[in-house]
């Protein structure tokens, strides 16, 4: 799935400067920012190269860079959206940045979701907690050209109601008649006015029992959720080759040099982050 892109740039570690044009809090400690390129050439390059599924290194000078996915879809490439949880040095600095502040972005790197291969198929998106952003990128890529796909089902769960991210978009999806949204929170995480399901994602998924026929599943979530969801998908009759996921590993360079993101022989930064479940199952589980 890797597309070789020769980037004619002297210093491959030089990031683009981005302006924060919008930001809002999704959940406690989780924030979404919309970034715009300051340099038109950087933006042109981004538009040319960015495809849904790719990731980038977001940074604040003086603190460093941090890797997360581009949460906006390829159909909306005028800006970059990213969603992150404030946890380390870089994400804290990003969280402290205000609208109008400048941050850096290096990328987009990695491979992509082969969305044109999904044409004409039913889509099942499964996501947990803070892992909705990568899925959201695919969801919008597909919803923006809704007519090309069959049935769209989104299963999303979080620990508590407060931890659900993209609440506005969840509402929007819920209202849409061409999207089937299944929301759930872990037992104990529901609020008094919670109208949706309560239960772990794999269980809820099995209850919803989407048909595996002509269906592509995209799952993203914490390792433990992925593990059990894959089992559920198998039970439902999904073929591993039709299940896509994205892997996240610590990265520094993003371009296959710094040597830390590999799982077994697979460099996540270059051969990933998008893999099919079949590809993941061939990786050494102990290295994940």
């Amino acid at each position: 799935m890797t597309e070789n892109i020769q980037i004619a740039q002297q210093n491959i570690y030089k990031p683009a400067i981005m302006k924060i044009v919008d930001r809002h809090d999704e959940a406690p400690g989780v924030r979404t920012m919309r970034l715009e390129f300051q340099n038109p050439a950087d933006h042109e390059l981004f538009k040319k190269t960015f495809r849904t599924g790719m990731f980038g290194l977001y940074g604040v000078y003086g603190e460093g860079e941090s890797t997360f996915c581009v949460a906006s879809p390829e159909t909306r490439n005028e800006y970059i959206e990213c969603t992150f949880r404030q946890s380390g040095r870089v994400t804290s600095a990003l969280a402290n940045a205000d609208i109008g502040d400048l941050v850096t972005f290096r990328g987009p790197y990695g491979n992509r979701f082969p969305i044109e291969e999904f044409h004409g198929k039913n889509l099942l998106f499964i996501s947990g907690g803070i892992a909705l952003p990568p899925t959201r990128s695919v969801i919008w890529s597909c919803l923006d050209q809704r007519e090309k796909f069959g049935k769209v089902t989104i299963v999303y769960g979080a620990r508590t109601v407060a931890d659900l991210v993209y609440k506005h978009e969840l509402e929007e999806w819920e209202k849409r008649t061409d999207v089937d949204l299944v929301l759930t929170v872990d037992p104990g995480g529901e609020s008094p006015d919670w109208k949706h399901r309560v239960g772990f994602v794999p269980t809820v998924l099995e209850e919803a029992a989407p048909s595996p026929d002509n269906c592509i599943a995209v799952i993203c979530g914490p390792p433990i959720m992925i593990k059990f969801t894959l089992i559920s998908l198998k039970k439902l009759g999904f073929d591993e080759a039709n299940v896509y996921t994205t892997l996240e590993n610590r990265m520094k360079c993003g371009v296959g040099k710094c040597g830390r993101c590999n799982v077994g022989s697979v460099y996540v930064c270059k051969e990933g982050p998008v893999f099919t479940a079949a590809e993941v199952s061939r990786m050494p589980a102990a290295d994940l």
Partner: protein
Amino acid sequence: MTRILFSDKLDNCVAKWRSAGLAVIGPVQEEAISRYAAVEKGTDFDFGTVLPDRSLKELFFPQTEPMLRYTIKKNEIDTADFTPPQGKRIIFGARACDASGLEIDDPLFGWDYKDEFWFQRRNESVIVTIACTKADDFCMCTSLKLEPDSTKGADVLLRPIDKNKGWLVEELTDRGREAFALISEYLQESSEPALPTVVVPEKFNLDACVTWLKNPENFESKFWKEISMRCIGCASCTYLCPTCHCFDIQDEGDTYSGIRRKNWDSCSFALFTMHTSGHNPRSTQSARWRQRIMHKFNYFPGKFTVNSCSGCGRCSRQCPVDMGITETLQAISNL
């Protein structure tokens, strides 16, 4: 008939190269360690040591180097590129394993994205390898299917002649020929034979090891735990390795100005792969040692068709607890 460079002419050569604008670098014995460093005259060289303590890698990929400088002003950020120090240089007296190490890492720094910090230095350096006539207990190039007179990564190969009188010159590349054209007046035609290269015994069966490593069943073999039990998790093996290339990116400075640096990093540190969440894919020392071996002999060749090891033996030579690639691969051979 080949040409000979006599050692008593070395001084003239160094002067000549220097006056032609080439920095001359060679193996030097310093008070505490030996390494490849700048020389000003022929007597600065030390060709006596089997292998300098520190590898040639650091002249191309220094332990710390600035990548860019940032200046933050109101509503504006300036990013200024650093380019590696420019200037041609000749590395006279590289060991075959060290020179091979450079060629091994070329594809890594060049796949898709080209790391100019590496390639600029590569393009501006002439590597003159001297074939080894001595080896120690840790040398293992032959086990890696390389030779003490391997021409890999070299622009010129020199073969020592008897009594340290000089070297037979074999020019291999245009870059090498160009550098030696500068000193052609000091080269003499001769039929003197070269000393035989040292015989380095083969220590393990590389093919058998690679086959074992490639078998997915062995990934979780208890062998890894046993062999790495005494590993203390320092980075002396990776940092002295001529092919280990992992690095970290760090910012130094403050919110107004500063610098972004590329620093050596090592797979033997727990923090190397630690996620912010606290999850660590390689959380044990055995997993990290397995990664090092697998990376060198399974993953790297899988990508670039060459083992990421040139057999210098520094990892074993310097290990505080006497571990190393040799021991591990020997053990795998004997499984």
